[in-house]
């Protein structure tokens, strides 16, 4: 079944906003089950990179492969390789995403939020979806909130619902875009716990984060991004204890000494 070497692969991914180049030739290969944390100063292009992976940002050039299949290909001269829409949609659904601001649908209850996409996009049976959604809610510890509207929940609870919503589509890769940055400090723990559980279950995860503790504990690999490039990458031990790149060193010093 798994006839691919890397579950996610990007080749020469670049992105420009006008003359400003935000991503410069990023190459990354991710194995199934790997947890990758992306750290770096703000403006480094971490979020942009993550969002380019599922087309929320349009890349200027480069190739993206999902499970060995070409998902996106754009050349510098703006030529785009046409990829079958169905394949593309299928590959897109292999990725689930959690946002910094959760982006739950405020007019739907928690349960409806989770069930919406499986029913509307995958056309799955409503009752089955509901049952699975309740399972997911139990998993994130919010089963009793199923019929609440999102705005009645705390930020941490909302983010857990958002994770459940993404998981309901049964993705193979989860993308987290600073999932705890908008949370009050005391609410961060629950969300991180859910993410840890997910990592332990063998989910492939790309996490843009400022939670160095989480990165140290959970990540298989840490990428340090600065100025649109991956400045340094390695195991958590390497990055946090023996960083080689002076930029990594100064970044870590600045955040750890605060």
């Amino acid at each position, binding site marked *: 079944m798994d006839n691919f070497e890397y579950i996610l692969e990007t080749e020469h991914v670049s992105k420009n906003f006008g003359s400003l180049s935000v991503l410069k030739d990023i190459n990354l290969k991710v194995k199934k089950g790997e947890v990758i944390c992306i750290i770096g100063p703000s403006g480094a292009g971490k979020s942009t990179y993550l969002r380019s992976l*599922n*087309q*929320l940002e349009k890349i200027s050039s480069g190739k993206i492969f999902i499970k060995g299949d070409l998902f996106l290909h754009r050349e510098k001269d703006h030529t785009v390789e046409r990829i079958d829409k169905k394949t593309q*949609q299928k590959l*897109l*659904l292999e*990725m*689930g*995403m959690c*946002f910094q*601001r959760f*982006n*739950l*649908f*405020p*007019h739907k209850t928690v349960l409806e939020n989770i069930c*919406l*996409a499986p029913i*509307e*996009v995958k056309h799955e049976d409503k009752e089955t979806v509901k049952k699975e959604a309740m399972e997911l809610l139990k998993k994130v510890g919010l089963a009793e909130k199923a019929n609440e*509207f*999102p*705005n009645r929940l705390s930020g941490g609870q909302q983010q857990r619902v958002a994770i459940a*919503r*993404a998981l309901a*589509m049964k993705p193979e890769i989860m993308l987290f875009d600073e999932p705890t940055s908008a949370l009050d400090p005391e609410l961060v723990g629950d969300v991180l716990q859910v993410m840890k559980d997910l990592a332990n279950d063998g989910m492939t995860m790309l996490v843009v984060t400022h939670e160095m503790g989480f990165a140290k504990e959970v990540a298989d690999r840490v990428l340090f991004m600065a100025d649109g490039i991956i400045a340094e990458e390695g195991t958590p031990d390497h990055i946090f204890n023996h960083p080689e790149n002076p930029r990594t060193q100064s970044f870590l010093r600045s955040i750890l000494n605060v």
Partner: protein
Amino acid sequence: MKSFLKGLINVKNWKKKTKVTWIIVLVVIAVCIVLSALKPSEADMKAMASEEMQAMIKADEGSSRKRVTVTYNSLIIVNYCSFSTSGAKEVTEKYVGFVGHAFQADEGFGKFAGQMVNYTYRMLGCGENLLHGAKLTLLLTTLSTAIGVVLGTLLALGKISKNKVLSKVCGGYIFFFRGTPLLIQLFVIYYSVPAIFGFAWRDLFAVGDTQAVYKGAFIAALIAYGLNSGAYCAEIVRAAIQSIEKGQHEAAKALGLSYSKTMRLIIIPQSVRRMVPPLCNEFIMMIKDASMVFAISLMDITTISKNIMTSEISYIVFLPALIIYLIITAFFTWIFNAIEKKFSLYE
């Protein structure tokens, strides 16, 4: 929609104030029913005519030129009956009926009360078909606003769509209808369009239908008002849609929802609440704009009140007009508030 109606109707959810309001309304209705049962009958009222008047009415029966107009207006708890001859030497007799008695209403408070009943009755368009007075105003405004909302939503989606041609066409439509006066649009639809295409609006209805002209004019008015309202609603809908934060689009896209499903399931439902207050304004404007139908022979509240002013040289005619407008506006403001509340449940 079904659950929305249920929510509106579910008495348990009502606040105490709402309950009190309803009790008052029901009591008022009950009192009205009792009083309306007590008021004199039509026959009693008509029997009030003086002997001379009776003689004139009798004389009319034999003649092919009727000179006496007998008016009988029944308005909930009171009724009004008048006998009037026309011509340079007018003779009139007026009576107001209330709780079992008929009072002479030729001067003083009786006259005032009689005029109020008569004017209100006429402005409401009682005893006539739907194309008169308040009934016309309500029918025209609700239908054309309904058309406007549907059309406006489509136009707004067209205008914000990535298809440049569609966007330009919708933008042009909105610009045109917002940039030209409604009265002129009404004239164009009613006069120019049939002239160009060689038909008459009355042709839409059966030959021999004495109301065909009015019905045709109503259809023309409905089209003009609907098209016009569409342009204004489009801007309201567009502003509401664009006020929904980008994150909602992104979340939907990340979940694989198509553009149309994102709009239909995520964006538009959320924008409804933001549309309601400006749509309410638009609707109330429409109620006032409805008076322009006088230009194509229809009689709405304003036109009828002007007509009464001309023929009776009476200035208190505007009092019932104002009250009727206020009641209509209050009623619809209440409905719009209920809709807004319903859609803001989650906030």
